């Protein structure tokens, strides 16, 4: 009898290969993609109401994107060989795309867009600050201090194009992760064409929720008034996205239950036992149904601003937990059952190890630290907005 194993597992299946850190990675890139989509709502889709969160969303995306490769590096048996993915990428492997999609998104989309939008502020700060900070800003100007109105118009046009390219790029950045799971025919819990779409919509939900929370927090810290029109609009888009996300997940569930193929009995048992709390309670009920009701209510009834803020705050907080649970259920859940459909194993999460809980917590806190630095360096709300109105 092997501890933690019920029934029969192929001998090499007992130990889980992809740990908590691999749960973290899609969560983080999801936040990146979602935050960027929110930013593009204003820039490309002309939802002018969410303008106050435009820069905030971009900085959020950058902070999380910089942390995204870390859980992967810590997971690899030989991180020093990870350059091989750039040197000899195997074109049939979705994972080989990672390096290129990541670099593309980081440089040509995110950094370029941030640079173009912040250029006026960067040049101004490079002239008004002193010392080490001045050096940083000077470097960020890339040596150009051209702030003529004509150049700012060009910046705006190019920035618009970058955002337009950025939307499918963000989809690719997170969608390929869904494809990494969805294309594994050996694993029936993962293998479905819906997987990239489900990942994408849940990413958008988590990203929008994260920016909403950060906006409320930032306004609190800066002691500025919250733009309720902005907040309500974000919450409205969050609600719509959430409805689509929920529909997709229910579609997957109903389809599986109806077809009841070879894997169904085993997976159903797993959801009812090992994944009961994380899947049924945390992901579906607490993480999806409750926030959906909380977000639907202001759409149907009139509530005072303070009530709406409380609703949004609670809904977004549990949404973020629910989307994390969703990643957990996919990654960990997909490894808990045997491919013989005759048994189950357990995930022995370590605490202070390389892939343990402590590392995961540190990796989740790091983006907020980086975010804090970015907000200080590139303030989303300058005293006087020069250039773009």
């Amino acid at each position, binding site marked *: 009898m092997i501890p933690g194993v019920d029934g029969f597992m192929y001998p090499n299946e007992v130990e889980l290969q992809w740990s908590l850190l691999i749960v973290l990675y899609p969560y983080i890139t999801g936040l990146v993609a979602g935050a960027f989509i929110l930013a593009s709502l204003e820039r490309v889709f002309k939802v002018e109401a969410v303008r106050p969160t435009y820069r905030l969303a971009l900085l959020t995306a950058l902070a999380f994107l910089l942390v995204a490769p870390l859980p992967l590096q810590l997971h690899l048996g030989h991180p020093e060989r990870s350059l*091989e993915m750039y040197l000899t990428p195997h074109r049939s492997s979705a*994972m*080989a795309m990672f390096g290129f999609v990541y670099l593309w998104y980081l440089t040509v989309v995110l950094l370029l867009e941030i640079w173009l939008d912040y250029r006026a502020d960067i040049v101004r700060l490079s002239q008004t600050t002193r010392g080490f900070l001045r050096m940083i800003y000077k470097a960020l100007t890339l040596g150009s201090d051209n702030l003529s109105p004509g150049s700012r118009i060009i910046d705006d046009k190019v920035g618009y194009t970058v955002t337009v390219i950025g939307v499918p790029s963000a989809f690719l950045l997170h969608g390929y992760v869904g494809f990494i799971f969805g294309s594994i025919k050996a694993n029936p819990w993962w293998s479905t064409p819906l997987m990239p779409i489900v990942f994408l919509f849940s990413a958008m939900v988590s990203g929008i929720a994260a920016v909403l929370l950060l906006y409320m927090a930032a306004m609190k810290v800066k002691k500025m008034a919250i733009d309720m029109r902005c907040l309500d609009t974000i919450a409205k888009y969050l609600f719509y996205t959430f409805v689509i996300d929920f529909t997709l997940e229910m579609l997957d569930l109903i389809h599986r239950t109806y077809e009841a193929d070879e894997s169904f009995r085993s997976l159903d048992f797993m959801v009812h036992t090992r994944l009961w709390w994380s899947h049924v309670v945390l992901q579906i009920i607490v993480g999806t149904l409750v926030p959906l009701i909380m977000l639907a209510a202001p759409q149907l009834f009139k509530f005072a601003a303070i009530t709406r803020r409380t609703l949004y705050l609670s809904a977004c907080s549990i949404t973020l937990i629910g989307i994390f649970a969703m990643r957990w259920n996919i990654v960990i859940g997909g490894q808990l059952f045997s491919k013989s459909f005759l048994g189950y194993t357990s995930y022995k999460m370590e605490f202070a190890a390389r892939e343990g809980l402590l590392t995961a917590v540190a990796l989740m806190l790091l983006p907020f630290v980086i975010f804090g630095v970015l907000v200080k360096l590139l303030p989303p709300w300058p005293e006087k907005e020069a250039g773009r109105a």
Partner: protein
Amino acid sequence: MEISRRDLFSAGGKLLILASVGATLEQITGAAPPSETYRMADHWWGMIIDIDKCIGCGNCVRACSTENKVPSGYFRTWVERYEVSEGNPNPHVESPNGAMDGFPPSVHPELKSFFVPKLCNQCADSPCVQVCPVGATFVSPDGAVLVDETYCLGCRYCVQACPYGCRYLHPEKETVDKCSLCYHRITKGLTTACCENCPTGARQLVDFKNQKDPVHEFLRTNKVEVLKPYMATHAKVYYKDLDGSVR
């Protein structure tokens, strides 16, 4: 420099003597012939397994473990014992320590029971090779699915992609490991460690490109199946008399 015909014959003769002495010595000592005599294009490796001959002794598991220095608790090959009862769609399956020490006697003599040896199926359309991001695992030109342990990142994507559960992460090397069809043996004219030590001949290495290999007659005259044929991996390990309950 002028080379006369005499010099040529003299040098050639010496070389010939040296070569034949060397070859004779090799035959005597049983050292491995030079790899130049093995041509990958002449071979396409696979295995045939006869369920009715497997006695579950675990010799194959022990031999493989010794030959390939397999770490304890992980398995390049293993044997499963099935106990099938009528009306129950799920068989009872066991593989105590992969059958490293054989099996304890069955407590269900009334059921249909048998042993199934398992290993890497050396798939020609291997899903594990398809997903490797860097090209650390591959199908060799002679049909063996191998892992380049100096190139593997240890991402374990291939472990997830294998439908048969035959891969694992080597705990010390931190690279992925699996049955290599004893590539270091079969390229020297030896058979695999598991086939060598199977007392009943339940497991046999086969070379599909060899006209005289018994596999051709075997496949023609017996009912054979690969594991999980619906996965369409083009597995090259064929089982004779495999029961439908086998997972």
